């Protein structure tokens, strides 16, 4: 049965670029951003329009971007620079200000390159590496205050407690709705696939956030009406695959298409372009200090090194999500030169091996030249996972 809200989300996505043009003509300002620890709440609270920038899957953009930044940077970074160089993407074109954070150092470098070559007004939010220390929270709160002061100057609006509280409530609603929608894709004969949920999450990068929350609530209501509470599970011989690793931004469909074609079913992820940013955000108060701490207290992004394996919340969360979504194999997706995730691939494989969970690392980029190589490896992996599932069922 079709999901009306899902269709509406796709429709509103198609309409969004023109809406931004009109909003800007009426005096609104758009803040395009690429970041992992930038609290969007502050952008929205100041009456600015937040739009997450970046796309994947286009080898031409990578090539163009590589002329400005290096070929030794990950393809997502190169693709982003390519977007600015081409300047035809509606979200790039309509960004009045561009914001980046320093979670990933290559993103930080992207900001410098974009500022220099494309004459964009760029704001950067510093992010501490030692995110787990109290002094890092103090530093990050100060960085956030500095960031907000620059946005206040641009918007002409002062960030009040009330404005921030309203925005936090809105974003809490979005996060809550996504976390509640997400399990429906992992059920038997699901009403919505993981790929569709992934699209829904990424629609939230650009749609008006209040409208987006309404759409999410409608979608959730339809899912509840059709299926009741989600019961996670599937067929006995299913290859239920969990995706981890480097970001898979809008437009990068290579791995997802291959999985679909070969009968592997994606049932979960801990991607920063997927579920993980919406999990475990606990904002204790409508203050910048509380917001800063809440963002640092989330499951950390791979670009923030954590030095003690036994207490690493990223690993802990990964194991929990694999269990929750009853995955029986992990595809660990790494983009070439994405050090934050590539450096952890073997370690993650070793850890999951002890739990009896097989992991396949796929090291790739946006060119189509490795399509068949990846297809062959995924095919073998899916077959192996299915056989293991069957034999475990028989036992």
């Amino acid at each position, binding site marked *: 049965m079709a999901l009306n809200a899902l269709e509406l989300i796709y429709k509103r996505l198609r309409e969004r670029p023109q809406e931004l043009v009109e909003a800007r003509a009426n005096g609104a300002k758009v803040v395009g951003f690429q970041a992992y620890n930038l609290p969007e709440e502050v952008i929205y609270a100041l009456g600015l329009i937040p739009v997450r920038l970046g796309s994947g899957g286009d080898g031409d953009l990578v090539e163009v971007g590589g002329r400005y930044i*290096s070929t030794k940077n990950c393809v997502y*970074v190169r693709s982003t620079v390519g977007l600015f160089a081409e300047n035809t993407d509606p979200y790039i074109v309509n960004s009045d200000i561009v914001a980046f954070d320093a979670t990933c150092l*290559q993103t930080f470098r992207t900001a410098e390159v974009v500022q*220099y*070559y494309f004459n964009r007004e760029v704001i950067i939010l510093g992010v*501490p*590496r030692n995110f787990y220390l109290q002094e890092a929270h103090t530093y990050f709160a100060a960085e956030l205050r500095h960031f907000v002061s620059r946005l206040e100057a641009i918007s002409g609006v002062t960030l009040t407690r009330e404005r921030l509280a309203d925005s936090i409530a809105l974003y809490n609603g979005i996060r809550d709705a996504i976390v509640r929608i997400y399990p429906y894709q992992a059920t038997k004969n699901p009403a919505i696939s993981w790929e569709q949920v992934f699209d829904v999450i990424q629609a939230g990068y650009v749609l008006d956030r209040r409208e987006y929350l309404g759409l999410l609530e409608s979608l959730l209501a339809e899912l509840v009406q059709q299926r009741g509470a989600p019961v996670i599970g599937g067929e006995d011989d299913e290859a239920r695959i969990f995706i981890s690793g480097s970001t898979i931004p809008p437009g990068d469909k290579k791995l997802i298409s291959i999985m679909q074609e070969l009968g592997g079913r994606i049932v979960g992820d801990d991607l920063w372009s997927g579920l993980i940013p919406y999990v475990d955000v606990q904002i204790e108060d409508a203050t910048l200090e509380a917001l800063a701490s809440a963002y640092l207290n989330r499951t950390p992004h791979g670009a923030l*090194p954590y030095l003690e394996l036994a207490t690493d919340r990223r690993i802990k969360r990964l194991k929990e999500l694999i269990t929750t979504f009853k995955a029986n194999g992990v595809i660990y997706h790494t983009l070439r*030169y994405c050090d934050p995730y*590539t450096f952890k691939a073997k370690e993650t494989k070793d850890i999951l091996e002890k739990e009896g969970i097989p992991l396949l690392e796929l090291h790739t980029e946006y060119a189509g030249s490795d399509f068949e190589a990846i297809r062959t490896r995924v095919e073998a992996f899916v077959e192996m996972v299915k056989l293991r599932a069957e034999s475990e069922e028989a036992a």
Partner: protein
Amino acid sequence: MSAVPQYITRSSVSDTAEYFRYPDEVREQFIATDDIEFRDGSRVTSLEVWDYLTQVGPVKYPNLYDNSSLYTGRLSHDVTFAFNLKNAYLSMTMHERMTKAKAQGRPIVFVQGGQSVDPYYAAGAVALRPASTGSWARGQREGLTRNQDELESRSDKQKAYNAISFEVCNSAGYEHIQEGNVPADMVAPYTALRCSDVSYGTEAHRHGPRAKEVKLLLVDYPLDHQRDKEWAIRYFADNLHRLTRSIDEQTGRKTTDDDLAREIKLHNEGRRLAIEIADLWWSADLAPTNGRDRRSLFLLGGMETHGDPVASLSLLREARRDIEKRVRQGHRTEGVLDNAARLFVCGSCVFPNDLRTEEAGGIIVGNDNHWSDITTLVNEDGDPYYELARAVLSYPYEQPLKERAGWTVDQIRKSRTDGVLFLYKWGCNTQSAIARLLVDEIKAQTGIPTIIIEDDMTRTQTEQLQNRVNSFIEMVS
């Protein structure tokens, strides 16, 4: 076939290799030079250095005496420059000196290169940058030819690739520390933008075989106009406090503010000497040393090369006098053309072969990496942690790109550079990312030619790199 100089001998190991020997005729002059003083109060005389270099070294480390011009690490032939011999001695004795320091109870700490090491020494530790870690590990293998040594090194590095990723550039000493070749107690580098691999490499130590023995810590270096942000300076100062407290846990003593203030004074002297040497070197009509010795000399101002700042100071003080004398006398350096094309190297931790660059008619007169930290003096008044933090966050190399370019242009002008090479190692994300930007800005400000080259940091397979450098020299000459 050209005549073989008397101080070069044929190898008994290989009929193609030639081995360098220090010539007897410079012995008397050399042994009259200063002793080297060490941090533990000991010293070696120049005679002892001479005996080591001429009797012990050739037997223990024949690889280091390999005289091939293809060998980037070839010993300098400027045998009348006392610094050159003493610097070689300190490199060759890394293993025995560091083993002794460890036995004396000094914690061994892995650090990022090109950064101030003042707080590590203030807390009583020995700070080892990546190259020094490798030097210590390699010093344990004796009697190897250059090719054997190169193979062993590649084999070591492969262990890091296997444990972390084949895209590792800098593995934070993983292969030596986790394999137990170097008995490091801590891995505690700054997280500066200079090298992102060091931070991820540090994280990788958590799963190594010695994970439980090696303490890990990152000294978190804030980004984006950090020197202008009071909260960033305070945060970095807090990180420095955390660093010294962590080392204190190893030593059982408490590092005081006075300890750090004293150490800053000592390191400032090294930095000042290096700056004075650079000014002298750059002021000379004729290059007073070859490019290899210039680099080693300037680098020594960072006090991080040999694991002993007091020994480094000892060499710098003497070298300062010698360079001044050479400049005054218009010393002509063997192998360097009077009108050599003067090159400045930007980028990450790779370098062309100095000797072959000079054979092609060029000379490398300066570099930004391992120099911007040395040119940044620390204010000796006030809270030493705060002042050190302020200085470290002010390194020109770590500033927004236009500011970094502005500082680089100053160095280029001072050194009368004819052309700029931006070099980066394969897999180096954060320096390669801004290679074009930096050279475009330098070109816009100075109009001098620039070139960007990628290298894979092997010691012998450098033809790809050198061909481009040589063509560039031809163009700028």
